[in-house]
């Protein structure tokens, strides 16, 4: 039996330590990992827990992230609760196997500490790696602070392993800004946490020799499409279980999660749609603007980047005057992904209820996103709303040195 750890009702943990503690409390059977900045401390701390007798499971140090996720796929197919951690280049190297894991419907939990993708080499937080995973068939949960990284990691097991979901789950947190920032955390006790997550219930496990199964069969044009469609359907439908797990977690902890988080949207005229720590910084900016300048600013933030909360976005933003979608990843030849998804959600309402939509590319490679800049963006949206059209390029770069950079002008008349 694994040793239990005495935790205070309030601990001061950074996001990495919080995620490592959640993995320990879930009593994962196999962690196969290859550490990379800024998620290294998750693997390092977990290794410490194993060495000190706090975990019963196996800890496998492999030779690359491709091998790490491959080890996870093998262990999950064998019938174990499985998790790992990565960032950036490591995430990129995992991508091939991410698709295998989701296609095989293996509920692996991957804690992703978001970091920029080279080149140029950079270890700081942006959402390049998170966006790289968006078509991989994983559920993607997004934490805005360290407490949420802990909570969502626990919930990830319960969501992914549910018999009606059986999909792998990523839990994203911002590199350094969350992963290396210590804040007050209210953890569950080991017993409470494990009782919440529950025992792992294997499905089609390869170690059941009385029922041999084949994983990784080849399908060509005769079968491939049907399997992918079934997988997409499972991901689309997973919101039912996600909502239920969020509710159960709220009952246990009082901490409420929604697939689309909204702040001050009741009477908002302008809004920012964002992911990660930017959400909280923007809330602060909106509060100040409401007090100081009377601008009715609100924030909308997908908690589940996948499945994307289309219905909830539509409800939250219908009737608003102007909305800025904030993408912390360089879209390279297109509009930002968040801008595109939000526009997709709004396409199904009458044109006179659709807000003006702008897109900001910001914070790449860990560039600071300040309260001051968030306020400037809100004010700019208010300006568009007042004249009734977008007066700037639709896509702009925020916080960039050099001449103003923007793309895609509004076509009027």
């Amino acid at each position: 039996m694994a040793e239990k750890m005495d935790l205070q009702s309030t601990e001061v943990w950074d996001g990495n330590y919080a995620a490592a503690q959640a993995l320990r409390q879930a009593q994962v059977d196999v962690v196969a990992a290859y550490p990379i900045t800024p998620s290294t401390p998750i693997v390092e701390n977990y290794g410490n827990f194993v060495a000190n007798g706090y975990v019963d499971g196996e800890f496998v140090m492999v030779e690359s992230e491709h091998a790490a996720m491959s080890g996870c796929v093998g262990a999950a197919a064998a019938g174990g609760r499985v998790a790992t951690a990565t960032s950036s280049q490591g995430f990129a190297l995992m991508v091939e196997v991410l698709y295998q894991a989701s296609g095989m419907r293996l509920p692996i939990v991957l804690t992703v500490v978001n970091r920029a993708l080279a080149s140029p080499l950079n270890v700081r937080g942006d959402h390049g790696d998170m966006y790289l995973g968006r078509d991989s068939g994983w559920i993607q949960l997004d934490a805005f602070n360290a407490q949420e990284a802990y909570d969502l990691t626990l919930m990830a097991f319960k969501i992914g392993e549910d018999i009606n979901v059986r999909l792998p789950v990523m839990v994203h947190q911002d590199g350094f800004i969350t992963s290396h920032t210590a804040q007050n955390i209210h953890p569950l006790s080991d017993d409470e946490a494990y009782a919440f997550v529950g025992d792992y219930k294997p499905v089609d496990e390869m170690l059941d020799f009385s029922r041999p199964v084949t994983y990784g069969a080849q399908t060509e044009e005769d079968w491939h499409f049907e399997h992918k469609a079934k997988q997409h359907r499972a991901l689309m439908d997973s919101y039912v279980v996600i909502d239920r797990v969020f509710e159960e977690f709220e009952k246990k902890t009082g901490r409420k999660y929604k697939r689309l988080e909204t702040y001050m949207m009741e009477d908002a005229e302008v809004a920012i749609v964002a992911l990660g720590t930017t959400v909280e910084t923007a809330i602060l900016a909106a509060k100040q603007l409401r007090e100081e300048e009377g601008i009715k600013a609100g924030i909308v933030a997908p908690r589940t980047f996948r499945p994307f909360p289309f219905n909830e976005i539509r409800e939250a933003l219908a009737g608003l005057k102007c909305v800025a979608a904030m993408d912390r990843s360089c879209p390279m030849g297109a509009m930002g992904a968040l801008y595109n998804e939000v526009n997709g959600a709004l396409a199904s309402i009458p044109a006179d209820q659709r807000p003006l939509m702008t897109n900001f590319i910001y914070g790449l490679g860990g560039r600071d996103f300040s309260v001051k800049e968030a306020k400037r963006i809100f004010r700019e949206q208010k300006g568009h709303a007042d004249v009734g059209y977008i007066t700037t390029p639709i896509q702009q770069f925020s916080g960039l040195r050099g001449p103003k950079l923007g793309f895609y002008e509004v076509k009027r008349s």
Partner: protein
Amino acid sequence: MTEIRWHSRAGQGAVTGAKGLGDVVSTTGKQVQAFALYGSAKRGAAMRAYNRIDDEPIINHEKFMLPDYVLVIDPALAFTDNITENDKPTTQYIITTHLSKDELIAQIPELQDKKERVHVVDCIQISLDTIGRAIPNAPMLGAFVKVSGMFELDYFLEAMKRVLSKFPQKIIDGNMQAITRAYNEVN
């Protein structure tokens, strides 16, 4: 909101100091944040660590800060780093140095008009005497406790013992002495 900026060199323990301070502050029921900005992440490179302390949950994640306290734990950084960056008319400075306060201020023009807000303490010497290594973070915490008046010294020492509980007794004792000495010597 109380905001603190640490000026340090990688390896001097500013991150540990900031997290330790956060740990102790959290025991008083307050909300804390501790983070750092590394340069090249090499030992000896100049770096900064930060604390935010508030009664409300802290949702500000920007790196930009108007510090209430500037803690300089490396003697040379007072001269080479921009320690007065984004300061306020009320910002308090605690600077580690072997110089007297007047000698130090005489050499740093930016501090001339802030004399009553500058405090000095020799964290390097204190840590050498008490811990046996030049790790100036613990003495700086002692000086901060005195200057800020945020805690009673005894409360802080007890709380730090818990934070340091995984270390050998000798290290804990050294740290307690370092904190106490700096508390008494800062001026």
